[in-house]
Structure formats: C-alpha cells, structure tokens
C-alpha cells in the first residue's frame, strides 16, 4: 500500500475564467500533520474543498485514501466521506441544532449505540475541545466565534475519522485555547494515528505541530517538505511568509 494518504498531481482549478491553481502537486503521508500555507486568496480552502469532493478540479488527479476521486461511484464516495472529518473555515454548524446535536449527529445517524452512550461521547468531546459543559444546550447563534470553532472541531472529531481536514482551526481562538488545541491534535494523532491536513496561518502551530507543509503561491506549490526544508527554500513567497518580523521573533526562540 502506498504510504501517502493524499496525493494531488497536476491539479488545475478554475472559477469561470480565473485560474486558481495551475499545476499543484503535493502528497500527504500517513500519520502526519500536514500544513497548507499561503496568503489570503491563494486557494487553500479551494484545494481543501477539492480534496473532500465538494468541488471538482478542471483537470489533474487527486487520490485520497488510495481512491481516485474522479472515478468514484456514488457508494464509494459515500463510504469515503465517512472516513474523514472536516472543520470548515466558518464553522458551518447546523443552525437549527444545538451544540450537542451538532456533535452527535454522525453517531446518531450512522451507529446504533444507546442514546445515553452517545450523550456521554458528545460530553467528552465537548470537554476535549475546551467548551464548558453548559454549552451543550445552546444553539450556534448563541455561541461566540471561538466557541463555534471548538464545536466545529468537536463535530469533525465525533466519528474519530482516520483523516481530518481543518481549515484554520486556531484562528479566532485565544492563545491559550490555540495552544491547548495544538496539544490535543498532537495527542490524538499519536494515540489514534490520525492523518491531519490543516490550513493555518498560526506560526505557533506551524512550529509545534506541523510535520510537513506546503506553501501555496503563484497558483502552485512553491515549497513542500519539513519546516527546515521549507525554510531553506529561496523562493520569495516563502521568504515573505517566514522572514517577516513575526516569523523572525519565533525562529529566535526556536522550537
């Protein structure tokens, strides 16, 4: 079996006439935390959406968990979808369901576990992502921005998927919350062997949790590899990204 969980090759994406990706190549290995970086509008969320079959690329191949996404049957697609969890940039919680129902909906629909147990699992996830237990009964409209992120994460984790896609999970969290989040991600990866693809601008996360990363720019991947590899890259976009003031402070402090 191929050790890469996701491989994207020669991907081209267009919205009407505007080209967003023009020949993107990257691969994510099993069990790693993979960072997707790039400026605003560089097409990170779009790339993520293509990996989870919400968008079809204009051309190119995407393989996820050893399946070619362009040739899947409806059943295969449905099965594949259950093997990953997604945290959307804006949360995308179901606004008519409570926090508890949002998190438990996968368990409720796809398993026959007793209701009490589902509630318990949901309660654990709520605690895990650092929400107060009282949040369970609230509706998404009654949550703060950071709480929405946490609920979305809990929902993405609810089925313990082998593959996790996170679009800016720590944006909108306070620094303490972001650090706890990073710890949780690492712990889950170590215990459950998850593979995680995350879009992030958070330099702390990039330093502490990301194993390998790709920097998107100029419609391509301008650098891919471990942080040291990427930092060694001379491409100006990479330079801007890491050698700006904030990046410098962080690299002085080291890991």
């Amino acid at each position: 079996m191929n050790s890469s969980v996701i491989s994207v090759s020669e991907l081209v994406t267009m919205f009407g006439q505007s080209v967003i990706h023009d020949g993107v190549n990257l691969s994510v290995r099993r069990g790693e935390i993979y960072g997707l970086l790039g400026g605003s509008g560089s097409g990170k969320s779009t790339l993520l959406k293509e990996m989870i079959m919400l968008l079809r690329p204009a051309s190119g191949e995407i393989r996820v968990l050893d399946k070619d996404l362009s040739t899947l049957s409806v059943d295969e697609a449905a099965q594949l979808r259950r093997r990953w969890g997604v945290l959307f940039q804006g949360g995308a919680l179901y606004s008519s369901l409570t926090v508890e129902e949002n998190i438990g909906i996968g368990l409720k629909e796809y398993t026959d576990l007793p209701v009490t147990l589902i509630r318990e699992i949901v309660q654990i996830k709520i605690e895990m992502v650092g929400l107060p237990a009282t949040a369970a009964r609230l509706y998404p409209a009654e949550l703060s921005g950071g709480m929405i992120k946490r609920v979305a994460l809990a929902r993405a984790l609810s089925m313990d998927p082998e593959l996790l896609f996170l679009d800016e999970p720590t944006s909108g969290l306070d620094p303490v919350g972001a650090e706890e989040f990073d710890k949780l991600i690492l712990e889950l990866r170590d215990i459950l062997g998850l593979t995680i693809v995350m879009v992030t601008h958070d330099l702390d996360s990039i330093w502490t949790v990301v194993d390998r990363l790709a920097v998107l720019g100029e419609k391509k991947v301008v650098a891919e590899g471990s942080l040291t590899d990427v930092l060694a890259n001379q491409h100006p976009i990479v330079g801007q990204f890491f050698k700006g003031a904030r990046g410098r402070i962080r690299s002085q402090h080291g890991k």
Partner: protein
Amino acid sequence: MTSCQADAANIVFDKSTDGSITLTSSGSWTVNALDNVAAVLEQAVKKYSHDIICWELSAVERYDSAGMALFIHYYDQLITQQCAIELIGATQQHQDMYRLLRRYIQEDKTPAPALSFRLLQPLHNIGKASVAFVQDIMAFLAFVGESFISFLYAVRHPGSIRGGAIVKHIEEAGVRALPIVALTSFLIGVVIAYQGAVQLEKFGANIFIVDMIGLSITRELAPLITAIVVAGRTGSSYTAQLGVMKITDEIDAMRTMGFEPHRFLVLPRIFALMITLPLLIFFADLIGILAGMFISHLHLNLSYTEFFNRLQTVLEVKHVWIGILKGPFFAWLIAAVGCFRGFQVSKNTDSIGRYTTMSVVNAIFLVIACDALFSVIFTELGI
C-alpha cells in the same frame, strides 16, 4: 455463556462453576463496529453486582474514542454496582486512550426531568405561548413607534428620503406584480359574472349584472384580492430580505456605520408599497370589470355599449375611491408586518422560514380584519 459477533469488535462473557466471571473483549473497538458489544454489555450490567470480574483486554486491536467511551461507561457502571474488576492485558493504546478520555469525563450527570414536570409540560407550553403572544404585540408596537419616529424625521428632512430605493421597490412590488394581479382579478371578474349571470337570468334581470360587478369589484374584491396577492408576494420577500440581512449581521453593520435601518430599509419599503398598492387596485378594478363585461356579453348577450351605459349610471365614483383608499392602509399593514417579522429573524436558518410564513399569515389576517373595520365604518357613515 453469551457472545456476540460484531463486524470487528467482540465481547464474550463467561461464568465458571466457581462463580468467577470473565469478560473477554477482542477485535477493533471503533465507532462503526460497536453496536452489538453495547447490547451484550448492557445485559452484563443488568446481571452482575457484587461480583468479582476478570476483564481480559489483550485481544482488542484498537480503540477509538467511542470504543473507549463505551468501555468506560460500562466499567463505571459495574464499579458503582460494587463489582471488583480486574483488567488484564490492557495495551498501551488502551491506557493512552483511557487516560485521554478520563481527563474529559464529567462526573456529575444531570438527571432526566421528573415525571410530574413532563405532565405539566402542556400547561407550561400554553403559558409560554401566551407570554410570547403578548410580547409579540408589544414588540410590534415598539416597531411601529420606531418607524413613526423615522417617518417624522423624514418629514422634517425630506432630503433624507431614499428616492432611489423607493423607485426600486415600486418596480419590484408594482410593475413586476402586474401580470399576476391582472390574472387574479380577471379570474375574479369571470367568477362573479358567471355566478351572477346564473341567478339573474332566472329573474330576467340581466342588466343588474353591471351593478353587481361594478360595485363588488371596485369596493371590495379588487382591494382585497390585490392586497392578498401583494402580501404573499411582497410581504414575504420583505421578511426574507431583512431576515437574511439580520443573519449576516448586515443590519448591525448598518447601525454601527450610522445608517438607521428604519430609515434605509423600512421606510422606503413602506412608502413604496403605499404608493404601489392603490395603483394596483385601480388596475385590478379595470381588469375585473373588463372580465365581467366580457362574460356578460358571452353569457347574457349584454352588448358592450349597454354595459358601459349602465356602468356610468350605477357606479358612482365614490365606490372606486373607497376601494382605492383602502390601498394605503392595507399596504402599510403588509409592509410593516413584513419588515417587523424580518427584524425578528434570529440567527438560524429555520427562523427565516418560520417568520416568512408568519409574516404572510399575519398580513393577510390583518388586511381582512382591517377591511371588516372599513365596512362597519362606511356603513355607519352611510357611504
């Protein structure tokens, strides 16, 4: 001995002759493979208390958090039933996962609501609904007050009136509604003429069809039918438009930038509809009478000239005016209710649908109630 065979997760329990109990779990304890295990453990928990249990774990390949939560759930339950449990052969992953979940498990569990509370639930609901109804009315009055203040402001500062928006709403609510208003009022004219013709023919009083059509259409039917069409078409769209703006925080953004929502969103809509509806009613009058004339000609052999002559003598112009004058009142009700319900939309997608429905139902009810009030007033006044 009881056992079950799940897809992958499995548990067997076994009571030996000397009374010691062994639970043996195996397979992969992951979320999609747990269903039967839960059922078997449920039985075990019912059966055993104050027992000594050996739980053999070494054959479990893997846990995910659902699997571990299930393990902890039944483990805790057996412990509370005074069982002594010895765990054998827990893997490293078992221990890691166990520690991870333990950290996040809540000790106190809120009990289910008591039975007496559930029996009282209907009363509780009635009470809540009544309070909500009163609050609704208060909120509507507050809304009306607020829009009246911005109306006064507009009167004192005519330059602040959003002419462009008014024109846009007139086009949306008026010009685009012409086809449907024409169609409905034509059909109403046809129905009245047909029904009337059948009855009047019996008495040979064919010519009175003109009185009937002329009066009923202009005074009652055209205003009412047009208002109902407009409530369904425009009232609902006002609610949905404002509701979406509420959900996307646009209304808050407008407030912070100093654009009073009442001045920018509500007044133009109310003005536009108050101008549009009387015009639409006049249009409906024409089409309705035309339809009646057409049917009378076909059915009662009444020539167009006869119809016109009779119409001129029986249809005093005040009847037409009365019908048209109802327009602004109906329009105000429809637009105010539509905007009010739009502002009530809360941040979830269900509520748009709920409030849009409410806005149409309320508007139609209020229009009919208002029409009844007019009838009483006009009768008392003798007009």
